[in-house]
């Protein structure tokens, strides 16, 4: 009897992930139709399948599709990286940029913008700096004996604030008429400028990270226990942690490189995902991806259609994320008391 109910629960979780997947597809299709030139979901599907008139093709395939794909990849990526980082650092209040990836990528992008490099170069440079910051944090962290996680968080803070100061300095010396606004706009986070070309740059690192994290998902559960417990269960914690941090970093750096800093997604979506599927990473990782993608597509719809001028998406995610986070803190404290 007990066996059957527990088995039923497992099925139930798979079913929930399936529902999340269906919601994601529906939201994505509907969103392709939303905008200044509205198209019904049926026409959208027809257009995607090769039908539709020239105008519909241009709007859906050339303008909106890259953006929806970007929102999907970035939302899924940030949420997955966030879920992973929370498990690695055994702390549900950690976000994917805990090791300074976002600020460093922002710094890399700012330099490129200052030097007037191409959009592609901005993306590539942001990516390189994002990855480099974590390599730096890791290299310093390797000198820590014993408990590694707390030290990494502190070093991450230090490195992050250094890059942040660097970005401020670049803003100070940037031409206030055209370059400074470009830097500020990038740092606010936006999917407005996403092109297929950008997506090509991040496609491979993102694919590698998605695959790696989903493959090691079950072992991440054990990494979320204490260091001693994980080791007594035969897990090579340093190796697994390196792999998972590496993959999360590739993911975060890719996301920031394309979209600028979009905060909060990687922090709050993992919470919602765990609420749906429970803590087991085998289920919470795919749930985070689907939830993150759906969430970012919806927020981006608001960002591009709410006002005539576009609202940077990073501002919106903060408006949604910050109050939700407060709610989580208050609720969790009440639970403990």
């Amino acid at each position: 009897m007990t066996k059957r109910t527990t088995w039923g629960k497992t099925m139930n979780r798979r079913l929930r992930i399936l529902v999340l997947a269906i919601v994601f597809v529906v939201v994505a299709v509907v969103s392709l139709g939303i905008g200044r030139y509205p198209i019904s979901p049926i026409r959208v599907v027809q257009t995607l399948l090769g039908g539709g008139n020239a105008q519909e093709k241009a709007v859906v395939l050339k303008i909106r599709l890259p953006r929806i794909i970007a929102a999907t990849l970035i939302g899924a990526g940030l949420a997955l990286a966030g879920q992973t980082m929370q498990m690695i650092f055994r702390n549900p209040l950690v976000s994917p940029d805990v090791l300074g990836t976002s600020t460093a990528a922002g710094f890399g992008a700012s330099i490129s913008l200052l030097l007037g490099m191409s959009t592609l170069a901005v993306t590539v440079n942001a990516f390189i700096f994002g990855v480099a910051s974590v390599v730096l944090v890791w290299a310093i962290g390797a000198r820590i004996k014993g408990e590694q996680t707390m030290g990494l968080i502190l070093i991450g803070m230090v490195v992050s604030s250094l890059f942040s100061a660097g970005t401020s300095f670049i803003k100070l010396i940037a031409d206030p008429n055209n370059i400074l606004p470009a830097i500020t706009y990038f740092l606010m986070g936006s999917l407005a400028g996403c092109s297929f070309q950008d997506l090509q740059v991040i496609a491979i690192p993102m694919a590698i990270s998605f695959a790696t994290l989903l493959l090691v998902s079950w072992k991440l559960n054990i990494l979320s226990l204490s260091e001693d417990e994980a080791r007594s269960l035969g897990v090579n914690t340093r190796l697994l942690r390196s792999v998972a941090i590496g993959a999360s970093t590739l993911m975060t750096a890719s996301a920031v490189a394309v979209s600028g800093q979009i905060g909060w997604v990687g922090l709050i979506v993992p919470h919602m995902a765990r609420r749906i599927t429970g803590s087991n990473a085998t289920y919470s990782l795919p749930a985070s991806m689907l939830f993150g993608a759906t969430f970012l597509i919806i927020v981006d719809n608001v960002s591009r259609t709410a006002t005539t001028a576009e609202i940077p998406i990073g501002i919106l995610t903060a408006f949604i994320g910050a109050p939700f986070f407060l709610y989580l803190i208050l609720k969790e404290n009440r639970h403990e008391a």
Partner: protein
Amino acid sequence: MKLEVQNVSYTYEHDRKPMGLHNPHDFQTRIYKTDTLVLKDVSFTISSGEMVAFLGKNGAGKTTLLRIIPSFLTPLSGDILVDEVSVRSMSLHDKAKAIAYIPQFSQTAFAYTVKESVLMGRSPYISMFSRPSMQDEKRAFEILDELGILDLAGRPTNEISGGERQLVLIARALMQDAKLLILDEPTSFLDYSNQLLVLEKTYELVKKGYACLYSTHNPDLALAYSTRVLAMDKGKIAFSMKPEELEGSDALSSIYKRSLIVERTQAGRLICVPQ
């Protein structure tokens, strides 16, 4: 199953050194004041069917020794052998298949269900890219049933009692199929009935062929639930005696630094009485 602890010494100082010393030569060339040694030349053996209670004051070196056995800490000198094989030469997986370590409580920020927690014990048999099989799940249910907590399988571990949580950790250890169970003060956060429950369940396992080493601050529990009492004082083994050998003895006085006598009650149980 046979665990041999051979001439183990330990100091916190050497473990902070970048190159962790393994070789006895280094031990001789470096000067360690003997009073900084947490463990001084400790040796003992435990075999299947033995339940060894580890007594000693705070700071006597109990926890340090329990953490050296599964290699959380590297000894300054000496060796740990499981069935004649040094733990140094074992892979992490092999070590986890031989030695199960059960902490005072499991620290996790995430609410895993009892079943998920128990399945984690299967980790040493599962590669990095894999997950537990249906057979593993079946085994998990059998073990939960054996420990009498099958009805908890679907509950989150943060919503069950401390005693139940300790049993879940024992169930997880049984999933490891390791024949040696190391428990670090398994009863310290439990109420009296749960203390008895956890030790009773552990004792049943020992009778089925497991070997167990646990530390405790309660001499009465040690006398009731053990085949041997191992007492530690200032980093050395003070004595290793069967509970019945301790009857009428004041041996415990030496480790607790006050007058204590082990007496037998009318019901035939051994208890430690302060004088």
